[in-house]
């Protein structure tokens, strides 16, 4: 059971079924409720949270109609208003639209009923009265009047006035509509007449829909088509500047920026750039886009008359605190550098290493996008060469004993004599990575060797002699 501060102290806000059975009702004073049910457990309601959840739900209803609004008129009587004009055809009629809406909402664990009517007031009333039992109900323009006549006064969105009307014996909207408007207004206030008019459609009521998510696009239009590359670059810069203003207002930064060039003859061309970390720095983004433009070799044709910059992907970007010494921030410098390199050389050209939990040399480091800041590197006790080949290269080697280091080997058609050697460092295959059915792979014995000329190589023999293979293969895997 939830309570909320209201007129005259804490009032009940939402009830469990048990509490309702005990005779409690919403908007009841907490003190009165305690008298009725001394053992009730009550805690404060989170009205703000409810409101936010309702807005989220209203956005979610956008799949039925683009025109939706949350309706938090009375606490505990939450609803969502949708303008479904023209939407019903898509779902195969109003009935099926309402069915689908209700069943989807109930799948979320909410109790729901829905109604469609020509006016907001009538739909509001029907959804809370006659539709509750049937789960849905809808009236057309022709049947609106009889439906309205049957609506109880509590469903007219008039709050406490309803109980006053009841005292006069006025139970339904039909009773009210038969009375002279002037006297109704005089006795019960203008609000009642207005609500009646809205429900019957005499007065127009509009829906204030939720604003769609910010449109992160900026356009620069030209009366005269642009022909020169320089001018297009300039225009792109201006569009990006406007876009960055929009991003700033939303507290976002773009990680992927799309520039669309619309040609006079109706063709359009997209250019994409990505940034390692979200950015709304117009100068930086313009520079990246400028490089992309230069290298794209786009066909300008008869000219470009509209340039549009859009954030295809945006992420939250809060203002960063620059340090007080005024020194350049090296991590953001690195990210910018990576952006420029990626923009010109292709995605993933600049990479940084992150330690991976593996003993297999080619898997000991993972090369990741340069935007990430790599963490601390754990020290490794085993010696590793400076250079590791992307793929180990086969060599022909002669060893004195099957398990020993090579005494001579031929690699890249050059014969080397081994003068110094250390090893083996035995690295077992990672059987859990092997594809099913292919066997676990072979053990590698690594040797560090130095040739007679002082050149250092890192070789391995694949396969345990006698157990895994009869002819062990040798590979050179690193140097230096």
């Amino acid at each position, binding site marked *: 059971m939830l309570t909320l501060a209201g007129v005259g102290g804490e009032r009940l806000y939402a009830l469990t079924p048990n509490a309702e059975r005990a005779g409690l009702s919403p908007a009841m004073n907490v003190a009165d409720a305690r008298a009725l049910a001394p053992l009730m457990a009550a805690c404060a309601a989170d009205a703000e949270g409810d409101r936010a959840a309702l807005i989220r739900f209203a956005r979610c209803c956008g799949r039925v109609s683009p025109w939706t609004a949350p309706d938090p008129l009375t606490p505990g009587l939450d609803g969502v208003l949708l303008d479904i004009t023209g939407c019903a055809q898509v779902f195969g009629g109003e009935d099926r639209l309402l069915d689908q809406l209700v069943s989807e909402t109930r799948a979320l664990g909410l109790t729901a009923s829905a109604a469609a009517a020509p006016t907001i007031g009538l739909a509001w009333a029907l959804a809370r009265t006659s539709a509750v039992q049937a789960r849905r109900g809808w009236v057309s323009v022709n049947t609106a009047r009889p439906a309205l006549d049957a609506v109880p006064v509590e469903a007219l969105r008039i709050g406490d006035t309803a109980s006053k009307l009841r005292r006069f014996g006025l139970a339904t909207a039909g009773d009210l509509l038969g009375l002279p408007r002037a006297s109704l207004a005089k006795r019960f206030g203008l609000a009642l007449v207005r609500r009646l008019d809205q429900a019957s459609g005499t007065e127009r009521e509009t829906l204030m829909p939720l604003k769609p998510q910010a449109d992160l696009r900026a356009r620069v239009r030209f009366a005269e088509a642009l022909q020169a590359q320089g001018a297009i670059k300039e225009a792109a810069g201006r569009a990006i500047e406007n876009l960055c203003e929009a991003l700033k207002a939303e507290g976002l930064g773009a990680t992927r920026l799309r520039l669309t060039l619309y040609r006079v003859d109706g063709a359009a061309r997209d250019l994409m750039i990505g940034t390692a970390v979200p950015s709304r720095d117009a100068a930086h983004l313009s520079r990246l886009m400028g490089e992309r433009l230069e290298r794209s070799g786009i066909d300008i044709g008869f000219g470009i008359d509209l340039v549009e910059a859009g954030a295809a992907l945006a992420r939250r970007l809060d203002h960063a605190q620059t340090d007080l010494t005024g020194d350049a921030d090296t991590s953001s410098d690195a990210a910018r*550098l990576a952006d420029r390199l990626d923009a010109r050389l292709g995605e993933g050209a600049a*990479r*940084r*290493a992150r330690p991976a939990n593996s003993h297999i040399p080619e898997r000991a480091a993972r090369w990741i996008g*340069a935007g990430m800041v790599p963490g601390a590197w754990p020290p490794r006790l085993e010696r590793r060469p400076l250079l*590791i080949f992307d793929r180990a290269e086969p060599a022909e080697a002669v060893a004195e004993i099957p398990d020993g*280091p090579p005494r001579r080997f031929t690699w890249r058609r050059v014969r080397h004599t081994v003068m110094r050697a250390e090893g083996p460092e035995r690295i077992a295959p990672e059987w859990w990575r092997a594809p099913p059915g292919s066997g676990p792979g072979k053990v590698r014995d690594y*040797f560090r060797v130095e040739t*007679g000329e*002082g050149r250092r190589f890192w070789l391995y023999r694949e396969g345990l002699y006698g157990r895994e293979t009869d002819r062990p293969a040798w590979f050179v895997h690193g140097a230096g």
Partner: protein
Amino acid sequence: MTRATRERETESLRADSGALSGANSGAVSGRAGRLAALKAKIAALEADGNGFVQPGRARLEPGRPVPAQPANDTDPLALFRAQAGLHDLRPDSYLDAPAAYAFAVRWLAGLPGDRLLVWVRAPGESRLDFGAPSPDGLHQAGINPARLMRVDARPGADALWAMEEALKAGALVFGEAGAARGYDLTASRRLHAAAKAKGGQILVARAHDAAGASAALTRWRIAASPGAAAPWRGAGGLQGLGSQKLIAVLERRRGGAPGRFELEWEDDALRRFEPAALAHRAPQAATG
């Protein structure tokens, strides 16, 4: 006439005319005087950054990092390493490329500070195809892999552009130029200027058979050399690997004489468990 020889001639011409104008400084008049003044200006500009600064008399300039005193006085390269700018190196032969890389890594590892290190690879360059930097190997050579950014670019213009961008961002750069035609006097001058402006350094690895001029401060030719054996037994009856030994020939140097260095690094004293001194004692003659 190749570009290289032309460059050399213009340099010598410039030196001659400088000497001439110095001798005839009394007769400064009109065009000749202006020319002499301009030449003096050029000479001053070039002397400013290109002559080696003695570590003890380093001039402090705002916005430019102070060349740090090398921690180790025995480092023979300290004098060259203190200079911001471009350094060239090429392996003595194809198979010496890993040795040249080792030289570059040790060079960069000895520089003070923890700037970003950008390793510009040119995977299409067949003369330097000795694999990618191994973060573990770099770590053991004294470079924290967290500083490393690896860039893969097409050899030539793209790789040179990437190097220049990295220098402008204030990074240390190791670049593979290989035998790319794009790497000439103009390109190397650009790299040198970019490095100097940010107080950074760039080492460019060229192919063993690359020819042509470059504006580098120093040009090195690196060859591997058999090092002393480790005092312990290695594998298969062979001795273990001692410290790595390189022969670095300083082929050209702006404002200085060439030289030859035999370099040896002993960087694994802490990791390797050498037998105690007792084990090395000379065998005593049997008495009795």
